[in-house]
C-alpha cells in the first residue's frame, strides 16, 4: 500500500499534486488502480455567521497531527484493502477558494475506493488535531467549535 501524507503551510494545487502522485503510481509494477475516488475541500468565502470571510487560520499540533493522520489513514486503508492513499492538508492562513484538504484513494474496485475516501475524510475531520479560526473582513475572528455538517 502506497501512503503519502503532507501538511502544507502555503497554498497547494490539488490537481498538480495529483498528477505527480498518479505518475509515480503508474510507474509501480502491479499497482494499477482501476478506481480512484478523490475529494477536494476548499475554503468558503462566507463565515459561519454569514459575513464575508477574509481567511481561515488552521492550527495543528505539530507531531501529533502527522502521527494521527498516518494512524487514521493506515487503519482506514487496511479495512478497505486499497492500493494507494494520498492525504494533503493545509495549515496556517488559507484564503477563500484555496484547497484545505485533498484525499485520493486508489483501489481495484470503485466501492472500496469510494468508501475509504469518505470514511478517511470523516475520520480526519473528527480525529486529527486541527482547529479552524475564521478571520472576517471587519478584522474580527472566531474559533470554530466543530465541523460543518456532513
Amino acid at each position, binding site marked *: 500500500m502506497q501512503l503519502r501524507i503532507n501538511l502544507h503551510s502555503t497554498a497547494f494545487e490539488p490537481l498538480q499534486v495529483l498528477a505527480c502522485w498518479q505518475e509515480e503510481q503508474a510507474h509501480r509494477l502491479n499497482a494499477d488502480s482501476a478506481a480512484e475516488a478523490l475529494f477536494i475541500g476548499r475554503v468558503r468565502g462566507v463565515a459561519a455567521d454569514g459575513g464575508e470571510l477574509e481567511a481561515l487560520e*488552521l492550527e495543528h499540533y505539530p*507531531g501529533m497531527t502527522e502521527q*494521527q493522520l498516518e494512524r487514521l489513514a493506515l487503519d482506514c486503508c487496511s479495512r478497505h484493502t486499497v492500493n494507494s492513499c494520498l492525504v494533503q492538508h493545509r495549515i496556517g492562513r488559507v484564503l477563500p477558494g484555496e484547497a484545505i484538504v485533498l484525499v485520493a484513494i486508489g483501489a481495484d474496485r470503485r466501492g472500496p475506493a469510494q468508501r475509504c475516501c469518505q470514511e478517511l475524510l470523516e475520520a480526519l475531520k473528527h480525529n486529527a*488535531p486541527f482547529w*479552524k479560526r475564521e478571520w472576517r473582513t471587519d478584522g474580527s475572528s472566531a474559533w470554530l467549535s*466543530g*465541523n460543518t455538517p456532513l
Partner: protein
Amino acid sequence: MAGPCASEIRILLFAGLRERAGWAERHWPIDCTGGITPRQLWFTLQFPDELNQGIRIAINQQFADLDTPLQPGDELAFLPPISGG
C-alpha cells in the same frame, strides 16, 4: 525505571482554549511516583472552559482518557473540539 526522574510534565494548550486561558505551554512539577490525572490537573489549573464541552486530551501525542495517571516526563495536551479537513 532507575533513570533520573524528570520531575515535571509539559502541558500544552491549543486554539481557543489557549487564548481563553492566556498561555500555550507550562511545565508542571509532579512527584516521581506520578499519579495525578489530567482531570485533576484541569481543575487545579482553573480553566475557563467546561470540561464536558468536547475537550479531549492527549498524553505523549496520543488521545488518552482523562483519568489516566500521568508520569514524570509526560507531554499532556488539552484539545478543544477539533475542526479539520
